[in-house]
Structure formats: C-alpha cells, structure tokens
C-alpha cells in the first residue's frame, strides 16, 4: 500500500501522464477517445491505464455517460491543490519592479537576520 503522495508522485513522474494532464488543463472535460487522438504514439489501451493511474492518485475525475467516459482535472483534489499552491508561490517569486527599484541601484551590502 502506498500513500496518496507516493501515488501522485508516480503519476506525475510519467511524461505521457503529464501530457494527458496538459490536455485536460486546456479543456474542461474530454473523452478517453479524444485524449488518445491527441496523444500520438501511445496506444488506446495504454491511455486507458494511464487514466486509471491518474484517477486513483486523485488527480482527475471520471464521469460516465452512456458508453462514454469523460475525464477532467479534479479541481478540489489534494494533489491539484498542492501543485496550485506551489504554482501560486512561484508566481509571487517573480520580482515586481517599482519606480524606485528601477532607478535606484540595488545595495551591494548583503544583510540578513536569519
């Protein structure tokens, strides 16, 4: 038995699964067939098993309607939440340049207080 983080990590470490997530982030909800059409070089059976890994690791949701299965990113799942949180932190890591900092040369002395 593995923890959710371990499963999610395995899910995210695979390049095909990352491509699937990329497509799912561009569209709200798509079928397994649409995903297989967009990802060339990977068979439909393999796509199905990748989707199963993504679902069990809490990254995506599956909805059945008739004979179709629709997939979407799980907006409230723990992994999405953790990654969105880290993405938010990274977004605020980029420098905001104010008028003052543009004209004022940065100080050369480094200070820190631990």
């Amino acid at each position, binding site marked *: *038995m593995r923890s959710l983080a*371990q499963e999610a990590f395995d899910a995210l470490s695979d390049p095909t699964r990352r491509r699937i997530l990329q497509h799912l982030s561009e569209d709200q909800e798509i079928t397994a067939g649409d995903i297989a059409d967009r990802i060339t070089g990977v068979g439909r059976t393999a796509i199905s098993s990748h989707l199963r890994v993504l679902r069990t690791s809490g990254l995506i949701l599956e909805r059945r309607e008739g004979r179709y299965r629709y997939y979407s990113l799980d907006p409230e799942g723990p992994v999405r939440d953790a990654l969105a949180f880290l993405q938010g*932190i990274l977004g605020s890591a980029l420098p905001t340049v104010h008028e003052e900092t543009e004209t004022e040369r940065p100080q050369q002395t480094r200070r820190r207080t631990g």
Partner: protein
Amino acid sequence: MADVALAARHEVPMSAHDLFDLFGAQAGASWLFDARCDAVIPGAPVTLSVPVGPDGGDPIDLLGRISRCIPGRLIEIVHDQPWQGVLTIKLTAVDAGTTRVTVMANLDERGLAWIMRRRGWPHDLPEDHSVHRVGLLTSNSGPGAVYTVACEHLAQLAVDEINTEGGLEGRRVELVVGDDATDPGRAALEARHLVAAGCRVIVASVTSASFEAARRAVGKTGIPLIHPHVNEGGGGGDQVVRWGERPIDQVRAVAHTVMRSAAGRRWYLVGNNYSWAHGAHRAATQAIDEAGGVVVASAQVPLGTGDFTAVLEDVERSGADCVLSCLIGSDEVAFERQVSEAGLRSRWETVSLALDESSRERIGNEAARGIWAVFGYFQDLDTPENNEFLQRYRNRFGRWAPPVSSFSESMYEAFLLYAAAVRSSGLDTSVTQHLYTAHARMPRGLVSSYGPEALRQHLYVARSGTDGFRLITG
C-alpha cells in the same frame, strides 16, 4: 532524483545584470529576490521567507544554499527545509532593458507529501507489513528547522546502511518522516501518525517541549521513543530513552576556560522560554557557581523571537563578562547576528549550548567568530571514523548537502543503535532493554548508554573560527 517541475515566467523591465544584482539586495522585490544571504556565490547559505498564509502572511523559511551561479544569467538554489528541492532562476535578455525571468521549482515525492500535509490534506500512510518502518519526528519548519537541517539525511543514511546489511527481521527498513513545525501540539499529532503508519520506533529531533508532547501522546504505545540529541534529561523510562549532551556537562566543560578568556566571572543567561532552556539555565547556574562565577541576570524570550534589541541593552546594562545562550535555531541565528551588527562581539565571551554547524553558517563566519560551543560531535572532528563517515555522507547527498552536526549525527547513531537492539533482542529481552545498555563506536567516538536517560560520550570544546569550528580540547 526523480522529480516534478513547476515554472513561472514573466518579463521585467530591467537589464539582466541589474536584475541579478537585485537578488539578495533586500529591495522589497519579491520573497525570492529578497533572499537573505551574505554573498551570491556557490556554497553560500540562503534563507527565503516564503509567504504561505492568506494575504502573503505566515511565512515559512526555506533553507538552502546557492549551488550554481552565472552573473546576469542564472542562480540555482538547492534547499533542504521545509522540503528538499531545487529552485532555479533563469534570466534571458529580451532587449537591453527587458529580461525574461523564469523561476522553476523541482521537488520530489517527499516534497509533494509535505505540501499536501501543510495544506491540511489527510496523510495517513497505510500500514505495510512487507517493510519495517521507522519514524523520524523532526522540525522541517518553524524556528527549529535550522538545527535539524541535516537530520533527515542522516536518518536516511543510517536506514540505507541497515538495509545494505539485510534490513531488520528479514524486511527492508523504510523511513517515515513527521514535521512538528517546532510546535508541541503538532508533535503529538505527527507522533500519532507515525505510530498509525506502523513505525516500530520513533527517533525525535525536536525541542524538549515537543518531545514531551510526543511522549504523552505515544509513550505508552509500546514502541521505543528516542531523543538522541542535546536535552535537559528527565522523562525517560519504559519505552522512552533520552540520550544526548546535558547542559550541566556542557557548561562544566567550558566555564573555566571562558572566564579565563573573558578575564571576568559575571554571567548573563539568555534562552528560549521552554523546558530545555529552563533546565539548562538551572544547570548552568550550578556549574557556573562551582567554577567560581556568578550569574548576574537572565532573560527568556518566546520561541520565534527575531528582535533582540531589548535583550542586548539588558546584557550591556548587566556588565556581564560572559553570555550563555540557550536560544535555538533561527532565534540563535538572529541573536548572534544582532550581537555582531551592534559591534558587541568583543564586549563579552559567548557560549552557546545549541550552536551547531548549521546555525553557525547561517550566522556567518564573521558574525559568529569566537563563539564557544560544547558537543560530543563536531563536523571538524579529525578522526578516521569521522572522516570516513563524512565521505559516505557526501557521496550519498552531494557537495551541497548541509553540514553535519551533533544533532544530525545523533540521528544516525540512534537508528544504528536501534537496529543493533532489534537484532540482539529475543524472546526474553526487549528492544528497549538493549537500548538501555547499547554501546558502539560511532563517528563521534565510543558511546555507551546506561539506563533510559544517559549516554556516556566524550565532550569537545570548540570555538567558531574563519570557516567552521576549531576544536580547543579533546
């Protein structure tokens, strides 16, 4: 290291070199560019205050060091706390006055697990009977994160070595880590999680306040709970084992030398307001008295204190010749830097009971110069077993891994002593009984446990020098 990467990109109306100079300049640019570091060169320790709360509040310190640096183009930071990962800043000139900045974060599975836990998601690890799980309760965040920085590495090194020798009871040993955030309430919660995950032992690298909370939470669950580093003693027995240096022995080892160096015998005691520092102040008062000194005043401040102006004024007023610090982690770093910035370093001699290699390098070579420390282990200990140990550590974790200290080396020891106890235990002797009488040659030298609350070891006195500790006695 297999990892996942996230990136953010943005164009900034500044030249790449001006932007590079902005890093570490404390100009209010962003949490990343306002890095606290003494130099932007490979190897320099870096502290980043990452805003994690709503509205950018509640920052946590990300502790790392610069691993690569190309002026005007790239800064790479390898970090160890609160999770292990790499942050890369790439600067690409779009034109003379515009630069594209890419910030990339790489993290591994444990990093992802840490963030999920901190976001409040349940993190129950299902029991797995195919492995022998061992728990490390440590402080990945909060003021204690500075001195525990290498503890996870050293625990992992011990686990790797135990597995190389065939694991325990025919099973692979797996390390599970809990972060107490330097908070006793959280320590109790994380200790329960480690027990629920099936850990067969918990080794704790946390404050005595957190250890006591963990003891109350899981001390009667039948699994050994070990506190292997510096502590004030007490609370041992049954499954609870407390090793580590004791304040009275540390102060006895150094008091005479320091008073001679100060040409004075008046002492000021400063510490964080919790059980270890209380016990250390009591023990220090006795040891100082035995050595012919006198305690003239003392101060206790809450954990997480960053401004020591009032304390420094009080020390000056007291006319102390010697200062004994029982501050820990980021508090100790802030205090010693402020002593130095105020030009007070040569005004008195300083002994610090928790100044390890990691705290020392974050204070900085210049600001820490001359501070006295007493431990059973220093990274600069020049013995064949220590040199070989450090080589194994560097081979496993690389040149940018944090320095080893008495705190982290004691984690390595505790897991090895636990493994030896498991291998020796049988139907009529328990693991705990073997822990009470454990003895072995370790990187620090010969250690022998006697009972649940003491470990015999040699103590070394050292002074902070130009690039590390200089051993004075031993």
